[in-house]
Structures are given as structure tokens and as C-alpha cells.
């Protein structure tokens, strides 16, 4: 057996090890992003999540100026911190609509009373059907929708305070 062949298994092992170590060091991105980017928001009609606030439909999103659609839930822990960041965005003139996933009216009211209310409209999505039709896979998630109702950006996970300038830029670009 030639020298090269004799050392082949060892070389193979080293290659395998290198691959495994590389994957451990840089874990794969397990986020599933929506394929609807740059496509119109699918048609949907949601009921109001609160008696005191207008409901949300896809036709409310093509208003000639960009909007931020935030998918949240009162039972979602990261959403609590995100709402405060959304308040900052609202203070900078951003219009934010909410989709409350699998939520009850009283729970949403309690959540907003406790953490603040940045939303102009909130639609209630009790069986995640609109969430699925948007290609979203969890809460919180946000979509930047331009004035023609086209999805321009999807943000998976909570918007952090340091991401406010990026979101503002994205909204500006969507004008």
C-alpha cells in the first residue's frame, strides 16, 4: 500500500474534524426568512384586537407611506422590551401597526397598559393564519411595508435599541 493511501483515513478524519469545529464555531443561521420580500403583502382581513383600536387589513397597509408591521403577543417575553424600542420609533414619526398572535383582548389591553402602546392599528390573529401567510415563523417579527403595500424588509426577533437607526434608514428607503 502506498504511503498516500495509508494516510488517507487520517487525512479524511482531519478534514471531518476541521468541518465539525468550523460548524461549532460558526453555528448555522436557523432563522427562516420570509420569501415574500419585495412582494405585495398577501390579502388579509383581521378583526380588532381591542375594542378601542382599529383593526388591521392588508388594504390598510398601502397608504402611500411606509409602515412598520409588528407581529407580537402579550405572552411573548422579548416583546416586552421591544415595545419600548417601538415607542422610540413612534416618537421619530414611524407608523406602527400590530398583529397580535394567539391573543385575547384583555391580555393585549393589559400588555399595552403595562408596557406602552406604540400601535396605530392592531389586528387579532387568533390562529396564526396571517402570520403564516406572511411567511413569519415566530414572535416578535417586523415587516417594513412601503407605500404601495410591498414588503421591503423582514426583521426576525425583537428590534433592539441599537437597530433603531437601521430601521429608520430602511423605512426611508421604502418611501
Amino acid at each position, binding site marked *: 500500500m502506498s504511503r498516500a493511501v495509508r494516510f488517507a483515513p487520517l487525512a479524511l478524519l482531519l478534514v471531518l474534524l476541521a468541518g465539525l469545529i468550523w460548524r461549532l464555531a460558526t453555528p448555522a443561521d*436557523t432563522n*427562516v*426568512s*420570509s*420569501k*415574500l420580500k419585495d412582494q405585495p403583502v398577501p390579502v388579509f382581513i383581521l378583526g380588532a384586537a381591542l375594542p378601542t383600536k382599529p383593526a388591521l387589513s392588508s388594504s390598510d397597509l398601502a397608504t402611500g407611506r411606509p409602515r412598520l408591521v409588528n407581529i407580537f*403577543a402579550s*405572552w*411573548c*417575553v422579548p416583546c416586552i422590551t421591544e415595545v419600548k424600542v417601538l415607542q422610540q420609533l413612534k416618537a421619530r414619526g414611524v407608523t406602527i401597526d400590530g398583529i397580535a*398572535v*394567539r*391573543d*385575547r383582548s384583555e*391580555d393585549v389591553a393589559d400588555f399595552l397598559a403595562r408596557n406602552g402602546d406604540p400601535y396605530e392599528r392592531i389586528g387579532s390573529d*387568533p*390562529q*396564526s*393564519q396571517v*402570520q*403564516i*401567510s*406572511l*411567511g413569519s*415563523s*415566530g414572535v416578535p417579527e417586523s415587516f417594513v411595508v412601503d407605500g404601495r403595500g410591498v414588503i421591503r424588509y423582514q426583521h426576525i426577533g425583537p428590534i433592539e435599541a441599537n437597530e433603531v437607526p437601521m430601521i429608520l434608514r430602511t423605512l426611508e428607503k421604502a418611501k
Partner: protein
Amino acid sequence: MTSARTALVALALTFAAPALADSNLPPAYWSDRQLPDPKQEAEAQALMAELRCLVCQGQSISDSNAELAGDMRDLVRRRIAAGQKPTEIRAWLVQRYGSWISYKPTAEPAAWPLWLAPLVLILVGGFLIRRRIRLGTRA
């Protein structure tokens, strides 16, 4: 005392449900209920076994207890009951989540190695056997 307390805390943690990971709403109507028409239910089950759960990645939505998986089973059953074909429902989901959502292998270029690997392995195997047999006859 401290060890007893540690044991108690460990025991409590073992049985603690992850707080607030789930909503307060009951599961969707069709999430764990069979369709009255057995043929439709069979179609739905076959499709649900081939759709990947978005939350617990690696499970199909028929295997998963996640609420989103339940809502997706509800969606599949409702659409099948309304007369949609499983291929249409799969295509609708793939349009949203990409081919990631479906366990059924596709013919897109990224999957070519998957289809070619068995052929390549058989060729390599045949080559090795041929060499072996030749060596054997020479000896």
C-alpha cells in the same frame, strides 16, 4: 440543609413549565381533530408528515406539539376540506417559507448532489470490486 434545598430546587426546575412560552388560547379547532372524510384526512396526514415545523426545526408539523405547528395542521386540514390539492397547499407554503418548509426533496440544483450521490457511490463500489476481482485472479 443546603443540599436538601439544592435537591428541592432541582426537583422544582425539573417540573417547571417554561413560563409564558405559549399563549393562553386553546389549540386551533382542526389541529388535533381528524377530518370526517377518511380520504381527506389521509391526504392531510400525508402532507402534514412532509411539512417541517418552524419552531422545533427537525420535526414535522404532525409530530410537533408547538402551537404554530398546531395552527399549521389546522390550516392544512381546513384547506383540504375546502377542496384544495395537497400540492397546491405545499406550493402556497413554499412560496412563503421557501423549499425549507417541505421535507420532500426537490429537483432544484442545490439538491442535485443528493440525487447523484447514490449513482456515484455505486460506480465507486463497482470500480473497487472490479479491482479486487482482478487482483484476486492475478494472485
